[in-house]
């Protein structure tokens, strides 16, 4: 079997974070801004944190509006190919009782506040909002206990592995990974381990 046509050695990958879990919170910015941002990037692939089953059945009801109302319709009518990268059973949102639960609630309020005050889609991907969201998610995972932390870690490894598989399947293309902000700081280093991937800022994709 011959090699894939037009393959080159390096695949560019950018990871874009969303605060998707707060999709029930009002989003202050227009999703049009996210559509415009991704439409301008024109990636070859857009990897989304959804299960292959959700994709095959076109079951988008439980997906966040960033996916459902912005990225999936955009990908449908452009050349972007959607790649579902979540495993069949992704970990559930962590919960805890007592003071841990109370602190978790506080962290979530902080995250929701970051979401509410973000002026645009790019704001949660850079600067203090991006870092603070990461710290709060770290704290939530720590409060939930070692098992939950391990599950999330495995989930991130799975996401990163799926991106790697995609890059090896069709090398030399431009991949945009759009996942919850909680994964950004973990997936990027995971992906950087592979010499055939070039991890860049989304604006440099």
């Amino acid at each position, binding site marked *: *079997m011959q090699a*894939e046509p037009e393959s080159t050695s390096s695949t560019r990958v950018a990871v874009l974070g969303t605060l998707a879990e707060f999709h029930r919170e009002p989003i202050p910015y227009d999703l049009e801004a996210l559509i415009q941002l991704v439409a301008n990037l024109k990636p070859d692939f857009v990897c989304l944190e959804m299960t292959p089953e959700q994709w095959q059945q076109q079951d988008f009801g439980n997906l966040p509006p960033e996916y459902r109302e912005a990225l999936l319709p955009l990908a*449908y009518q452009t050349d972007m190919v959607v790649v579902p990268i979540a495993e069949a059973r992704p970990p559930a949102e962590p919960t805890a009782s007592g003071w841990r639960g109370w602190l978790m609630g506080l962290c979530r309020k902080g995250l929701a506040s970051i979401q509410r005050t973000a002026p645009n889609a790019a704001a949660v991907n850079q600067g203090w909002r991006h870092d603070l969201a990461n710290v709060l998610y770290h704290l939530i995972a720590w409060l939930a206990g070692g098992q939950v932390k391990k599950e999330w870690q495995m989930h991130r490894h799975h996401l990163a592995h799926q991106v790697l598989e995609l890059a090896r399947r069709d090398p030399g293309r431009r991949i945009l990974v759009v996942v919850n902000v909680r994964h950004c700081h973990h997936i990027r280093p995971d992906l950087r381990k592979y010499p055939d991937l070039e991890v860049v800022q989304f604006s440099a994709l």
Partner: protein
Amino acid sequence: MSTHAPTRLIILASAPLYQAAWQALLSEQPDIVVAGVISDISNASDFLQSDRPTTLFIDHSPPLSSLAQQLKTIAPNSGLLFLVDSYDLDQILPLLQAGATGCISRDEPVAELARAIIAVGRGEIALPPSIAARALASLARGKSATGDLIELLSEREVEVLQLLAQGMTNKDIAQTLILSVRTVEAHLRNIFGKLGVRSRTEAALWATKHGYRPQE
């Protein structure tokens, strides 16, 4: 790294109100640039450029087949997308034979129209897959079969060819195989070379003639 240039769109609509409506609607769609709006085919050549994918979207009253023939003469390198009342093979086949690249029903949503405009600009047949497969089967009747070249094709190229024969656009093929559109295009160029055909329509007809039809 280069990405696809936006598709240039020329709208041919006889009624001024429709012209304005199509322009307002389609100029907002990603990867589409409305390059001109005309009411008569005599103005079409003013907007045609051979170096960019161009689609002529035609919302016109019948007879459409003769219009397709005239437009194909004026704009041989542009894709012709006709707005039709329904996907009726009796109407679609003469249009394809006259030079149309695709048809879109008035009942389709805007996203479908935008996809069809982009696909047609690249010379892809834009029809619903079930209609495209039937149209290809009808067009393939009477074509002489060439030698069996299938062994020259790679496993992936056979997959691409099968999906092409189902009437899929490059985007649909790419999404089905989880490959980029540009990789699908590269596979198609290889396929055209190996089969000795010049267009995707010829390749699809070859595949249909040789039984590379969808697994129904």
